[in-house]
Each structure stands twice: as C-alpha cells, then as structure tokens.
C-alpha cells in the first residue's frame, strides 16, 4: 500500500451535550476511493467538517502529505487541495458557470498593466483553464450559462470541475448521487474512476450501499462517533456492512409482501400538460404499490405534481374511485384524498422551525379546528398517535422538526399525510438521503399501508428500491409512458432500456 495522503489519528470532537467523534482513525491514500458509511448521527459529517477545516478537533492529529496540519478555515483546507462537494449545492445561482468554477479563488492580474498586486479577475485565464479541464474530463460545459439554468447533473459537474481546477488532492463527495438519475450516476462513477487514476483521493459518502460496492476501494464504518471497522470493500458483503452500520441485523431492506390489488382507486386518462407530459394513462389499484421509473426530466415529478394539482391541469382526465376529479390546485387534491410526499424533504416537505406536532398537523389543521380555531388538545393527540404509529424518534412532539435526523424527518412528512387518511399516496424519492435503518422502516411502513388498502405511487431513482417494493413498474421517457413491467418481469436492464428510449 502506498503512503497515506491523509491520515487522521484519534480524532475526538465534542459538541455541547454530544460526543460527536470519539478517537476516530481514518486514512486515505492517493488514487483511492474511500467510502465513509454509517447511519445519520454516526459522525460522518463531523469528520468531514474536521477534514475540511469547518470544525477543529478537540483531540487527535491530522497528517496531510506526510506532515501534521491544522486547517483553521475551509479556505485553508481548500488552498491545500482538500475540496468538499456538499449534499446541498454550494453554487451561486445568479453567477455563470465560469464564475462558479472560480469563486473564492479567482486567477488574478494587476488592475493596470504594471500595478503590482493582482486585484483584477483574469477572465481569459479562467476561460482557458476551464476549457482544458472540461476537455480532460470529456464533458461539455456552457461556461456563460447562469447556474440556475443547469440540471442537477450539470451542476455537479461544475462542482467536480471546480475541485480539479483547484488542484484538489482530496475530494470529498457527500451523497453525490442524491439528485442524480441512474444514468447520470453511472456517468459520475466513470468520472470518479478517472479522478482516481489521476491520483486524487476521494472520500465517498452515500447511503446507497450498492454504489459503495460499485465505486469504492475501501470503506470505513462509523457508528455513534466511533470507528467500527475499516477494510477493503471486497472483503465485506452487503449484509455485513449493514450489520456494522446498524449494530444489529436487519431482516430485510425491501419487505415486500404478496397482496391482492383491489379495484382501481386512481385512474389517469390521456393526461397532458403543455410540453412536459403527453397522453399519460394508467390506473392504480387499492393496496397496490406502483413504481414509477424514469430519468430526471422524463416527467415523473411533473406527473406526480399534475395529479396533486401543483402543476396546472392540462388535457386528460383523472378519476378517483371512478368519479371524475377536477384538480385545479393542491388543496383540492388534498380534499380528494391524494397525498404527496415531495422529493425535497427539507424544502418542500417540512417547515423546519415548526415543531414536530405543528408539522404533523399542517395538512389536517382545518379538520383539527372549529370555526378556524385550532383545537390544541386534539392536535397533540394526533401528533402523539402518529409519532407512536410511525415510530418517529424524537425527544418530544414540541421540538422543532429541524432537530430530527433525515429518516425521522421523512417519517414526519409521511406521517402528516397519513394523518389526512388519504386514498392515494404519491411518494417522490421517499428514501433519498435517509440512512439504511430508517430506510428499511419506511419500506416496511409502505408495505403495511399497502396491505391496509392504500394505493401508493412510488417514484424513485434507486432501481433496487423500485424493484424491491413495487407490485408493478411503469417507466417514463420524454413525458410519455414508455412501458410497464410486472414485478416478475422487471430487471434493472429492462427499466434502463425503456427509460433511455432504447427499448
């Protein structure tokens, strides 16, 4: 084994009331993809923040390129070649791609020709080097486009290019595939391999275990702030890994039970919206989980939102229990018994500063009130009830939703809709960014709900999840239904073929 690029020894970090890291060791060699895994709260983010200079360790030492270092600021770490690609994008929506590549580290030249210090942004040099990097990655970047115009995958590319432009020796990727489609993710993996071959060390964080097995060389498992194990990926299995992470054995990640699909609850006929959806028809039955696959931009989310009334209705008909439904706005959809768990939990699903109970009652607040006055007692009853039923782990129903872990936040989002007792539940990426334990629980909940007759439309970019949970899978391509597969027929390859328009 080559010498370590980055070596952490005995790192301890304490926050008020919490021991976030407890004597953690970690080593990264050049040209290695090192996965960092663990449940939420295991200490992964703290570790990354220490490596990237956001936090300072209370104890322990960091060696970088063979010498002990401290990074007092993120800038100091970045200057030494350590870059983080955060889960939440840290790009500037108003600025162009070119500029985003260089923010904070502009190549400079003197204001006037011979006036000493460089204060002026050297656009020419920027453009030239950006084009070089894009070319070396084999990608095309529209340097003059403002970033808010780019797709998620393109934005991520900008971040990677930015890291390379700064001669990054270590790139930390935190849930990079979260917003990506399978196809984009595949492209990302090949990019990661390319980076690895250049000798860049990559710390890779993901809740999607299959990705770790696909892309990582070694892995380190953290649990409760301690390092549990570090080993080459090849020496472990999925089950062992889950065991290390959770500290116990999970029965199964995809608890699918055989069910009878009942009569259709939701019937969609010839649905179309201007430009995004064309002639979409399908039915969803009582107790059925219908998977919806497709690339980002294929119209999956638009379809969900059209049914939920957030996208204005265009052509076509939607029937609920055989009755024509005119869904002009989301409020109407809610009244009709349609629930939508949106893809972006924190932005679309929750009011983070609101308490758990305030979030849980958000959808049914009018029902919990008389003449507009909230009945706080029944609000509490409902909240306690949902927290118990969904096993939401929270210190109390009065704490802000922001304090909960990702998985429990997602359960709050599901819970607020279950409180409304819907007929149809649309779940858009329900387990994105959720750790494996919570993921299994959400899946179990879905099965249970379907078993009790709820009709579920599951949108996911994670094919194993679709394959594991769905009774039937529908694939979208360019705003149309490209095909449908039964649970038995469906494979990843068939879905991808339909989704990319090959089949």
């Amino acid at each position, binding site marked *: 084994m080559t010498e370590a690029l980055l070596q952490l020894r005995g790192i301890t970090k304490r926050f008020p009331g919490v021991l976030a890291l407890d004597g953690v060791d970690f080593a990264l060699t050049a040209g290695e993809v090192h996965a960092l895994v663990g449940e939420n709260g295991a200490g992964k983010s703290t570790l990354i923040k220490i490596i990237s200079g956001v936090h300072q360790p209370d104890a322990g030492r960091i060696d970088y390129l063979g010498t002990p270092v401290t990074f007092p*600021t*993120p*800038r100091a770490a*970045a*200057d030494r070649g350590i870059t*983080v690609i*955060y889960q939440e*994008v*840290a*790009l*500037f*929506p*108003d*600025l*162009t791609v070119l*500029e985003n590549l260089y*923010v*904070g*580290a*502009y190549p*400079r030249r003197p*204001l006037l020709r011979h006036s000493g210090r*460089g*204060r*002026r*942004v050297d*656009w020419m040099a920027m453009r030239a080097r950006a084009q070089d990097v894009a070319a070396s990655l084999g990608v095309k970047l529209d340097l*003059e486009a403002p970033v808010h115009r780019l797709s998620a995958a393109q934005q991520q590319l900008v971040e990677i290019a930015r890291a390379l432009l700064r001669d990054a020796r270590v790139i930390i990727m935190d849930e990079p595939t979260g917003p990506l489609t399978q196809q984009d993710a595949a492209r990302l993996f090949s990019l990661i391999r390319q980076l690895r071959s250049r000798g860049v060390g990559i710390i890779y964080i993901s809740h999607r275990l299959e990705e770790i097995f696909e892309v990582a060389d070694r892995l380190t498992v953290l649990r409760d702030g301690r390092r549990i194990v570090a080993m080459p990926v090849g020496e472990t299995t999925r089950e062992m890994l889950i065991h290390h992470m959770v500290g116990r054995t999970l029965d199964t990640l995809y608890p699918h039970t055989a069910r009878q699909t009942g009569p259709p609850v939701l019937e969609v006929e010839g649905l179309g919206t201007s430009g995004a959806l064309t002639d979409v028809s399908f039915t969803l039955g009582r107790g059925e989980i219908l998977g919806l696959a497709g690339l980002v931009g294929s119209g999956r989310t638009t379809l969900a939102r059209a049914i939920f009334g957030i996208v204005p209705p265009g052509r076509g008909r939607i029937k609920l229990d055989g009755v024509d439904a005119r869904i002009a706005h989301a409020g109407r959809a809610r009244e009709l018994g349609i629930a939508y768990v949106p893809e972006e939990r924190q932005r679309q699903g929750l009011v983070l500063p609101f308490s758990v109970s305030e979030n849980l009652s958000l959808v049914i607040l009018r029902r919990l009130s008389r003449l507009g006055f909230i009945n706080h007692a029944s609000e509490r009853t409902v909240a306690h009830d949902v927290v118990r039923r969904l096993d939401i782990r929270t210190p109390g129903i009065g704490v802000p939703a922001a304090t909960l872990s990702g998985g429990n936040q997602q359960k709050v989002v599901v819970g607020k809709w279950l409180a409304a007792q819907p007929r149809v539940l649309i779940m858009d990426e329900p387990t994105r960014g959720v750790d494996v334990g919570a993921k299994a629980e959400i899946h179990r909940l879905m099965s249970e709900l379907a078993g009790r007759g709820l009709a579920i439309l599951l949108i996911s970019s994670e094919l194993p999840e679709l394959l594991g949970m769905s009774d039937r899978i529908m694939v979208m391509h360019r705003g149309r239904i490209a095909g449908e597969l039964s649970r038995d027929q469906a494979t990843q390859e068939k879905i991808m073929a339909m989704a990319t328009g090959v089949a």
Partner: protein
Amino acid sequence: MRERGRELTIVAALAMLSGYLSLTQANFRDAFTISTILTNAAYVAVVGIGMTIVIVAGQIDISVGSMLAVCALITGTLARAGVPMPLVVLASLLLGLGMGALNGALVAYLRVPSIIVTLATLTVLRGAIVWWTKGYWVMPLPPGWKVLGTTHLLGLPLPVWIGWAAVLAASILLAHTVFGREIYAAGSHPQAAQLNGIDTARVTFWVFALNGLLVGLATMLHVTRFSMVQTQEGLGLEFLVITAVVVGGTNIFGGSGTVMGTYLGVLLLTVTSSALTFLGISATWDQAIRGAFILVAVTADIVRTGQWRQPVGWA
C-alpha cells in the same frame, strides 16, 4: 452572457420618452436642457452606484439622504473656515466613508439587519443635523466652492464627467475585480460564499463603507453647484435612489444587478420628472403618475421574463 434585458427595456423607454419630447418640445432637444438633466442625474447616479452595490450584496441602505446632508453641512462649514477645496473634497469622502463604515460595522460585525441599522442612522443623523445647525444654512461659501460643480469640460459640467467616470469605474469594479465578484457571490448565496473562503462580513463591511464614500463623492458633485448648503439637502433621497435601482433591474434580494442599469434607471426617472413639466401635466398628479409608471415598468418586466412564478415574499 449576462442578461441585458432590463437595460434594453429602459433604453427603449428612454428613447421613446425623449424622442416624443424632442419632437413636440423644441426646447427639450436643446443642448442646455440635456446638460441640466445629465447634471441633475449625476449625483443621484453616484449614490445609485453605492446603493446598487449594497443591494447586490444582499443589503440595503436607507440612510443615504441623511449621510449626504451631514457631508454637505460639514464640508460647507469647513470651506467657510478657510480649508482649501481639495481638502474639503477629501473631507467629504472620508466623512462618507466613516459613516458608511459605521453602518457596515453594525451590519457586518454586530449582525443587525441592514434595514434596521440604516433606519436608525437615517433618524439619528437627521436629528443630529437639526440639533447642530438649528436650521441655519451654511453660507456664504468661499468663491472656490463652486469650481467643482460649475466648471465645464467639452460643454458638460464636471459632475457629469465625474458621474460617468464613477459609473465606469464601478462597472469595472463589479465585473472585473475579485472584490466585485465577491460582492455578487455574497449576495447570491452567503453560505456558499463563506464555504468558498469569502469573508462575507468583510465584504459587507466594505460594501457599506464604499457606499458611504460614494455618498461623500455625490455630495461634492451636488452641493458645489450651489452657493449655500441647505439643511434640507438629501430629504427623501433614499426613496428616489432605491426606485432607480429597482427600475434599473437590480434584484432587490441581492446577487444580480448592474451599475449601468441603475444609471439608466436614474436617467429615466430624471427625464420623466422633467417631462411632467415639459408636457404641462398637472403637478398634483405627479406622484400618482410616477408611482404607476414604476409599478407598470417592473410588473411588465417580471411578466416578460416569466419571473412571476417566484414564491411570494420579499426577503
């Protein structure tokens, strides 16, 4: 390319308005009329540059009118005391810089929202002026006082040239210097800016300081045209300038906007105001027409660009 839509809209509106006035009013297309309009716009534009920078950085400064009055009265007093004009100009710049730095320090380092800080300084400075001057204007001023404001160069008064130079310099500063780009970054996404090693507090501080400096400059362009300094100088200036910045296409929430847009916005407002006199529109309807004009202009632009799908809210 950066979007130039709003600038073009204003240029079109300006061209239409001025075109109509020139065709119907012989005296409007007169060189002197144009020179007066440009001169009156110059100092507003210089304050507008500072305001644009502040707003691009995601902040606001409503104390500019009071700061201008303070600069005007103190420099007038200095000039009367025999301080040579170059030093008086320097004093105005430093005084503006100092007041701006005070705003900046309160916003950047004590982290009080800028609207509250500048609301407070607006009130405090204006109160202090009345307290100090008891309403007496500063006069008579020495003969050198009006040199800056009334000297002509190539047919246009110096303030116009200085205003243009400031617009040009600020455009370069914003578009081509590291500091300028950091202002956009800080206004566009402050957290990300910090993650990228930009000291957003430092940027905020200097943005306000720079704004103060520009108010100091604007003061000199404005008051050196007159032979006395009135205590009422700068009343309501913040309203005029913020309107011009908004009309000029700067996003009121920060992150985007250009100095050129603001300059055009100032010109448009100045020409509109003169147009009311030239067209003989009853002065009692003045305010209603100007307000409606702004509402229609901004609304049309938002509808044109499809921006109207934004979430509600202003901050």
